[in-house]
């Protein structure tokens, strides 16, 4: 075992895959000597050269389109887009092309592309650089969407994503310094499996991405109130590990869904709908299904205001306690 940051874990996954297969190519803006906007690709150019590290002009739509075309002929591009917000610019190649090529060509072509981009607030970069836009992608058949929280999940999932024959949207949070221990050597984590980050019996909190850590904090505090929290880190949004969610909620009878994206129209709705759409799970529910998500607001620059945007441990705790009316 060794300690790696989220940044290093992602980098290591890329290095291992690039070394294994020269068709794995990093494509993006300033991914060379600059190391990318969040320094994730540092050292890759030196090690693999321009054959596997391609720096592009500021042309998000074009470079993703180019990656789609290259993938159709066998490249395994790992695209890095500096901020998730610019996914708006890459929406056409991803949604209208990458997601549909295998289907529209009845399997003549596939698009084994990974689209890496960081989402979320906390950087003071204001409204156009801090969104959580996973909802752009989760309703698109043909795409897979993952969003790991921890270094180990990031590494394992990225390696699977790179080897996957389908286009995978690989979302990252911006706490790239987050550290955890990681097994030495080769390992992968399959797409589509949630991870129970904490076992519990009274309430299931379902989340993904950066808010996994917020929920962990909230759960630790809730220990004092003797509420035992089970934390499901989805890791993969599409495909979603519905069995794991349902099993947990059937056990606890209570569910709270947490993410940083604005609540209204966010992915939490899908999770809630999975829970209450299942007869047995529905019958097991002892309380309404709650959501604690981002506020309905573009990200303000002001630090104090920005801090109030994503779910806080306090808000999660309140939402959980509200599910135990007798206990309050």
């Amino acid at each position: 075992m060794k300690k790696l940051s989220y940044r290093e874990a992602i980098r290591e996954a890329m290095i291992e895959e690039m070394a294994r297969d020269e068709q794995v190519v990093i494509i993006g803006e300033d991914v060379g000597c600059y190391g990318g906007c969040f320094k994730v690709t540092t050292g890759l150019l030196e090690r693999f050269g321009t054959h596997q590290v391609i720096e592009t002009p500021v042309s998000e739509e074009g470079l993703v389109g180019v990656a789609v075309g290259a993938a159709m002929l066998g490249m395994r591009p790992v695209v890095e887009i500096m901020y998730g917000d610019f996914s708006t610019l890459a929406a056409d190649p991803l949604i209208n092309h990458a997601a549909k090529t295998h289907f529209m060509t009845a399997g003549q072509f596939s698009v084994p592309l990974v689209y890496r981009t960081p989402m979320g607030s906390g950087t003071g970069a204001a409204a156009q650089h801090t969104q959580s836009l996973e909802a752009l992608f989760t309703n698109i058949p043909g795409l897979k969407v993952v969003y790991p929280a921890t270094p180990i999940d990031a590494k394992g999932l990225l390696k699977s994503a790179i080897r996957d024959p389908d286009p995978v949207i690989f979302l990252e949070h911006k706490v790239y310094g987050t550290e955890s221990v990681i097994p030495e050597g080769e390992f992968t984590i399959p797409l589509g499996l949630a991870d129970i980050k904490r076992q519990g019996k009274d309430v299931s909190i379902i989340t993904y991405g950066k808010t996994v850590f917020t929920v962990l904090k909230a759960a630790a505090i809730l220990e004092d109130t003797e509420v035992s929290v089970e934390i499901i880190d989805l890791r993969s949004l599409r495909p979603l590990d519905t069995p794991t969610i349902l099993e947990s909620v059937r056990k606890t009878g209570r569910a709270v869904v947490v993410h940083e994206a604005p609540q209204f129209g966010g992915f939490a709705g899908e999770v809630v709908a999975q829970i209450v759409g299942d007869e047995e799970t529905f019958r097991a529910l002892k309380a309404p299904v709650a959501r604690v998500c981002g506020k309905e607001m573009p990200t303000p620059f002001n630090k104090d205001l920005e801090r109030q945007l994503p779910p806080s441990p306090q808000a999660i705790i309140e939402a959980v306690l509200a599910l135990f009316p007798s206990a309050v």
Partner: protein
Amino acid sequence: MSIAFNREQGLKSLTLMIRSRLFEKKIEALFSSHEMHGTTHLAIGQEAVHAGVSPALDPEDWILTTHRCHGHTLAKGASVEAMLSEFFGLSQGLSKGLGGSMHLVDLEHHNGGTSAVVGSGVAIATGMALQLKRTGSHNLVVAFFGDGASSRGIIHEAMNMASIWNLPVLFLCEHNLYGMSSCATNMVSVESIASRGASYSIESRTVDGNDVEVVYAAVQEAAQYIREESRPYLLETRTYRLSGHSKNDIRNYRTREEEAAWSQRDPLKILKERMIARGHLSEDDYNLLEKHEQKSLDKIAESLAKQKRYLSFEEASSYVYATGGSR
């Protein structure tokens, strides 16, 4: 600048153009009689472009085309039967009935398919070229786009990247004067789209897109340049869509006089008359050829119209992901 086809070349080219023309007319008829559904974009009048481009290439060169893709697909090697099957939505169609008229694709003949999002295919083609270059292939990619598409930003991004990376891509602008109802005169801020090559240090040229010999020669030259210089190339072909934009187009945005004038420059007429003048063809030969093509087409169409072999919903589902399954 131009070459003169010998008799054999001329006949091959003429046959292809006749086949394309009759194919489009057949499609038009099948739509009118509601035997086909969806929408369709005919390339009647633009045969010299598709018959001039792919035959001038190495068969392993790639093309990536547009919503107006029938002629390109035929010229790149797809059989009339596989194409027509796709129009009928049959499981033996080019993409088993999942793509339809706007999404003809043919891996076997190095046809990467289309984007029906006007312009977007040009970036995809550029990416294919990137991969060809990376893997040391000597092949190139033809990125078809129209005068309408030329206003999409993606064209700018793709040309810039193709230039800085020295990619083997032939940007092939099929300038047919209109994008739907919009005349290029009002929408394109420059006389010659080819002249925009200068913005990307891309070699470029405008040629008569109704003269198949001219197109053929220009593509050969461009392809040679691309292979030898390892540089992209922009070729603008000036032509005219004699048909409407898609079904039910009353063409109130242009005059019948303009159409008549362009009919005089019908690419089939031009080649036919030239071959007759050269003694390579007689009127009778032509009629025979046409009749032969028509008969073969009718036969295929008739046989397919009766078929109902569609993918099941489950089979269709299995194509959503390369890993199988629909989620």
